[in-house]
């Protein structure tokens, strides 16, 4: 895409803020709450500029009391507001998960649909910069396992803006997980895909539809968020070797676009799942089961799952890169599956 009068080159972070801004402009019940979301602008840029534009009554710094302020978001949503509440790092879910999964996510069901919770929970995920075992996790599998909340994880600026609009307009809770590595922050290593042309106008990207990020015929790579970038990098490299990789960017885990997974595997017969969350009991198994639920014979080779191998994320760079699904592991997996 080239720049026209109607688009701007934005980082994912800026596109996300752009999406929030548009919704805050059109609906004054939308507010943004969380730790360091005001003057600081969000540790990972998720709210930069919002305070200046909307003031301290709509962009609100909270105490470090996640249970209280996420619960506050729920109550406000129940009363018709549309709060966006930030959990600074997803790794902190353990201090406030009850509000999230037992309240935010279940009130609709428990009330037989009589109470709605139109709330967005934003949160930063992911590692790769030596932040250690308590600040580097993705954990989308944890959220996606528990019913009642949609879970989105954009990989690029366009989706970040469009999914944000959809999330805010959704009448139920949406967990919006932004990977630090896709945000395009100046102070963190970034992939070129973290900056792109984004339409100025508001638009939505529907929640629950995967995107074929690259069409291919040899192997399907199903992945999400930052790993989409890595997978595309590897796919480009492997094209030269005659391995034609299809990359599916799930964009959301809940709903999961099972049809898109099956359609791609039906074509390629070979599946690699790349997931920066932990290997077991998570996304990679669910993607596989989406195929075997329908027809295991679609799989003409063992599936390769490239994920964090069930250890806490180590601090030391070499160790961390050994457990993250980085280019080398993805490439090896694709080659193995293609050759099997």
């Amino acid at each position, binding site marked *: 895409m080239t720049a026209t009068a109607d688009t701007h080159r934005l980082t994912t972070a800026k596109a996300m803020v752009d999406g929030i801004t548009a919704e805050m402009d059109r609906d004054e019940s939308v507010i943004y709450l969380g730790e360091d979301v005001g003057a600081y602008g969000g540790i990972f840029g998720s709210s930069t500029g919002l305070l200046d534009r909307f003031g301290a009554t709509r962009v609100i710094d*909270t*105490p470090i*009391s*996640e*249970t*209280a*302020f*996420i*619960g*506050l*978001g*729920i*109550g*406000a*949503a*129940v*009363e*018709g*507001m549309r*709060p966006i509440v930030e959990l600074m790092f997803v790794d902190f879910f353990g*201090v406030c998960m*009850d*509000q999230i999964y*037992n*309240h935010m996510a*279940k*009130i*609709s*069901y*428990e*009330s*037989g*649909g*009589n*109470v*709605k*919770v*139109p709330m967005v929970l934003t949160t930063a995920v992911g590692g790769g910069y030596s932040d250690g075992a308590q600040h580097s996790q993705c954990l989308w599998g944890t959220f996606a396992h528990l*019913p*009642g909340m*949609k879970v989105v994880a954009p990989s690029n600026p366009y989706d970040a803006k469009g999914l944000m609009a959809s999330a805010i307009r*959704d*009448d*139920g809770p949406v967990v919006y997980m932004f990977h630090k590595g896709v945000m395009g922050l100046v102070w963190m290593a970034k992939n070129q895909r973290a900056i792109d042309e984004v339409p100025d106008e508001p638009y939505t990207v529907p929640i629950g539809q995967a995107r074929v990020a690259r069409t291919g015929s040899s192997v399907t790579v199903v992945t999400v968020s930052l790993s989409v970038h890595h997978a595309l990098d590897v796919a480009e490299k492997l094209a030269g070797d005659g391995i034609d990789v299809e990359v599916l960017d799930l964009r959301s885990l809940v709903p999961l676009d099972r049809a898109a997974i099956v359609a791609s595997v039906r074509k390629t017969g070979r599946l690699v799942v790349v997931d920066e969350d932990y290997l077991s009991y998570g996304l990679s198994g669910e993607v596989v089961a989406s195929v075997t639920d329908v027809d295991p014979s679609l799989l003409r080779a063992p599936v390769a799952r490239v994920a964090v191998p069930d250890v806490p994320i180590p601090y030391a760079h070499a160790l961390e890169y050994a457990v993250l699904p980085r280019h080398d592991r993805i490439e090896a997996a694709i080659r193995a599956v293609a050759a099997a």
Partner: protein
Amino acid sequence: MTVPTAPPPAEAPDGGPEKIEGETRIDLYRTMVLARTFEEAMLREYHSDKRPGFDIGKGLVPGEMHLAAGQEPVAAGVCAHLSTGDAVTATHRPHHFAIAHGVDLRKMAAEIFGRETGLGRGRGGHMHLFDPATHFSCSGIIAEGYPPALGQAFAFQRKGTDRIAVAVTGEGAANQGAFHESLNLAALWKLPVVFIVEDNDWGISVPRAESTSVPSNAARAAAYDMPGERIEDNAVEAVYAAAGRAVARARAGDGPSLIEVHTLRLWGHFEGDAQAYRKDLEDVPGRDPIPTYEYTLREAGLLDDAAVQQIRASAAEKVEDAVTFAKESPEPDPAQALRYAFAEPDGGAA
């Protein structure tokens, strides 16, 4: 309930009968009787079809059942100051507050019976009553009803109304982190919330002294720079008076307050609880607050036999009507078990 043969001590006039209208006093009594009548009906219905062997999952009303008999003064005294535009978030023991706040008895009973006509179409159950009409909700997770109340209060404040939120926990729950976080945030943002702690001496089998490092949770209000008050004697008028001050403060925009009421768990923690751990069991019936208050109002000339009979009969009629409605209502269709997990475009109308 039965009136004790020996007249119980009259309720201490804390909060002052002189300040409180006769009609209000009768209303407080009426609310308590209605709540008790409901709990007695639930007790009856719950156990009616679980005999001879008690099986918690059996019967028309299965599952855990936490009844609030003995705690009516708290709900009646607090909710007397509320309109249905105000919010209440209650606990796993929610019925008395729901009733005092005006939740529709039929829909509530139907929910407890797991019927499609219930507040949650049978999906929620007795610990998960949600009533948008009265902004009432509750939660089975202790203390976790506090945070959402902040948000309701926040929304009310934003809209420029003087509506408030009341958040309830037990004394056991006051040792949970959510209690602390909620009080701090509410005080910091001057949210119109009234925090209620129902101290019924027990958290299941654990006596208060073995869970709480201070004799009064009111002392904890100071940790948030908010007024704190403890009502020692389960007296509805004392609750009414304290709640009046707290509600007025909240409506005036002066922020939250904390009220702890030393109340009474007349029955077990949940039905089926043999209460072997409970040493105070013998003198419990004598501490029933309803006969006590009835005696006070009789002494004051506000109630006589006829009035009492009328109030009880009216309560019984409403409750039995609700129970009948519940029993006659359709059960949810299992084929619809997956609905409502997500917001539905049609507004959730069946």
